[in-house]
C-alpha cells in the first residue's frame, strides 16, 4: 500500500515537472522559430520565413547596420526602463495603501484602477491623443512615457496586491515587538518579503511597455519604438536584422537572468525564514 502510494506520488511529482517543461517549451517555440530564421538567407534581406536559400550568418554580422532599427530598439528600451521604474514605484505604494489601510474613497480608488484595464487600447490611445492635442502638448518620447506609465500602474497594483493579500503579518509584528519603527519594519521586513511580487510586477510592466503597439502608435509623434518599426516594415518585408536583434535581446536577457540566479543563491542564505504557525492549523481555510 505504502509502496504504491509512494510510486503514485513520485509519478505525480514527475508529471507536474514534465507538464511544466512542456508548457515552457510551448512558450519558447516562436522564439526558436525567430532565432532559426535569423539565419535564413533571403534576397533583398527581407524576412520570408522560408528556408529556400539556405543558411547564412550575414545578418548577424550586419545586425546593427540599420540605423532606424537600432534607434527604434534603443528608444523602446529606454522607454520601458523609465516607465517600469515609475509605474512599479507608484503602483506598489498604491497596493500597500489599498490592502493595508482603510480609508474613505477606497472603492473609488479600486474602481479607478480597474477601469483602465477594462478599456481597449485603441480607446486609451485615441483619447490620450485628443487630450494632448487639445492642450497642444508636443507628441514624442514624453507623451509615450506618460501613456506607458498610465497603463502599467493598474497591472502593477493588481500583481503586488495579490501577493500582499496572502502575506503573513506575524513577522512584521515580531519586528515591531522588538522595537523597530514602522519605517524600519517596512524597509527590513516587509519590502524584502514583498520583493518577489514587486519584481514580478516590474517584469510585467517592462514587458508591457516594450511590447506596446496600439497606444504608442497614437501618441508617438515622430518617435519610433521597436514595435512601431516592426509594424511599419512588416508590410513591405521585415529586414532579417529585426529577427537578429530580437534573438540578441533574448540572449542578453537570458544572461541577465543567469546572473540574477547566481546572485539569488547567495541571497537565499540571508533571506527571511518562513514562519512556523504557532498553533495547529485549522482545517477550514478562510
Amino acid at each position, binding site marked *: 500500500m505504502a509502496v504504491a502510494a509512494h510510486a503514485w506520488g513520485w509519478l505525480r511529482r514527475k508529471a507536474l515537472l514534465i507538464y511544466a517543461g512542456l508548457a515552457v517549451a510551448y512558450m519558447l517555440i516562436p522564439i526558436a522559430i525567430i532565432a532559426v530564421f535569423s539565419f535564413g538567407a533571403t534576397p533583398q534581406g527581407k524576412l520570408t520565413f522560408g528556408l529556400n536559400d539556405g543558411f547564412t550568418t550575414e545578418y548577424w554580422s550586419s545586425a546593427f547596420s540599420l540605423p532606424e532599427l537600432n534607434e527604434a530598439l534603443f528608444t523602446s528600451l529606454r522607454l520601458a526602463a523609465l516607465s517600469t521604474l515609475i509605474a512599479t514605484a507608484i503602483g506598489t505604494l498604491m497596493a500597500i495603501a489599498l490592502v493595508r489601510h482603510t480609508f474613505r474613497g477606497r472603492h473609488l480608488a479600486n474602481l479607478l484602477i480597474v477601469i483602465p484595464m477594462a478599456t481597449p487600447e485603441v480607446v486609451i490611445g485615441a483619447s490620450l491623443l485628443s487630450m494632448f492635442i487639445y492642450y497642444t502638448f508636443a507628441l514624442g518620447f514624453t507623451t509615450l512615457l506618460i501613456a506607458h506609465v498610465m497603463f502599467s500602474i493598474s497591472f502593477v497594483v493588481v500583481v503586488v496586491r495579490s501577493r500582499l493579500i496572502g502575506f503573513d503579518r506575524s513577522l512584521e509584528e515580531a519586528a515591531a515587538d522588538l522595537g523597530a519603527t514602522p519605517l524600519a519594519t517596512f524597509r527590513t521586513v516587509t519590502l524584502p518579503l514583498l520583493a518577489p511580487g514587486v519584481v514580478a510586477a516590474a517584469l510585467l510592466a517592462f514587458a508591457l511597455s516594450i511590447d506596446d503597439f496600439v497606444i504608442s502608435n497614437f501618441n508617438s*509623434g515622430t518617435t519610433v519604438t521597436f514595435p512601431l518599426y516592426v509594424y511599419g516594415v512588416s508590410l513591405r518585408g521585415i529586414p532579417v536584422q529585426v529577427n537578429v536583434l530580437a534573438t540578441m535581446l533574448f540572449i542578453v536577457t537570458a544572461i541577465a537572468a543567469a546572473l540574477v540566479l547566481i546572485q539569488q543563491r547567495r541571497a537565499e542564505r540571508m533571506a527571511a525564514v518562513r514562519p512556523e504557525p504557532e498553533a495547529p492549523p485549522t482545517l477550514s481555510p478562510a
Partner: protein
Amino acid sequence: MRGRGRRRSTALLAVAVAMVTLAFGLAACGGDTVGGGNQDEVTTAKGGPVSGQLTISNWPGYMDPGPNNTIAKFEKTTGVSVDYIEDVNENESFFGKMQPLLKEGESGGRSIFVVTDWMAKQMYDLGFLQEIDHADLPTVFENMRPQLESPAFDPGRKFSVPWGSGMGGLWVDTAKAPEIRSVNDLFDPKSKGKRTMLGELREPVPLVMLAEGIDPVEATNDDWLNAIDRIGEAAESGQIRRFTGNDYTEDLTAGNIVGAIGWSGDASIIENPNAEWRMPTEGCSLWSDNMVIPVGAPNVGAAFGWMDFIYQPEVNAPLAEYITYIPPVEGVQDLVKPELAKDPLVFPSPKFTAKCTDQDSPPDIEPVNEAWQEVITG
C-alpha cells in the same frame, strides 16, 4: 457593518453624480461643432532656402537602403539633415493618427507626407494641405511624365507631386492555379478558401466592378454596393480567406493562397518562384502615391528642394531600381538596368494600361464605407 456599507455607497453615488453633472455641464457649455471641412483658408506653400531640418513621412519600402542612398545624397548635396520616417502603413490609419493634429493646423513636425491619390484629395478637401506654387518646383514640372500632369483627383497638380505609381491586379500562383486571369476567377469555388483580397475599399471593389463591365469612375453608389455585396457573400461562404494589407505576400510565399488581389511592385517581397502578377483581362486599377505639404509644415523650402532633387532622372533611377514601382520621372527608363527597363510592370506602355481605371471614390462615401467595413469585419 450595514450602516457603514450604506454610507459608503451613498457617498460613492453622490460623487459619481457630481462628476457626471460637471462633465456634461462643461460639455453643454461647448455645444459647438468640432472638425469639419474647411476650405476657406487654404494657404500656398512658399519656397525658401534649402537648408535646415526636414522630416518626411513615407511608406515603408519606398527608399533605397544603405549609407549612400538617396537621402544621403540629398543631405550631402544640400546640407539639409533629413529625418525620414516610414510610418505610413495604410492611408486610413495614417490619416486617423494625423487628423487630430491637422485639425489644429499642426503637422507633427513633418514637412512632407506621401499618401495615395484619393487620400490626398480627402486631406485637401478638409483643408489639411497647402497648395504648391509650380514656380518653386522647376525640376519637378519639367521632368514629370506627361500622363501624370493632370490627374482626375488633382487637375493641374495644385497640391500633390507623385512619388511613384503602381497597378492593382492579380497575383497568381501559376503552378497551382494557372487559370486565374480575371477578377471573376477569384469567385470560382475551385480552391475555395485560397484567395485573398486587399482590404482597402478602393482596390478590390473597383476591380470587381470592372469585371462586371462597369466603369468605376462613372459608377453609382448602387453599383458600389452591389459589388460589395458580391464580395461579402464570397467572404461569408469562405471563398475569400482574408482581407489583407500588404501581407498577402506572406500568404503567397507560404503557399496559403493561390490567388490574390495585389500590387504590381511587390515582386521583390514574394519568395514564390511560381507567383506572377497578372493584368486582369478586364483591366487593372492605377494609383499613385503622392508627396503633399501639410498645413503647419516647417521648412517648406527644404521640402521643395527635396522634391526637385528627386525628380532628376539620375537620382530617380537608383530609387526606381529598388522600389520597382512606376517612377514618375521622364527619362528614367534609359538609366536603369536593361531587365528593369523592359519590365512592363515598372514601365508600362499606354497600351498595357489601356483598360485600367483610376482609383476614385464613390459618389456618397459614407454608406459605401460602412457597408464595406461590415464586410471586412465579418
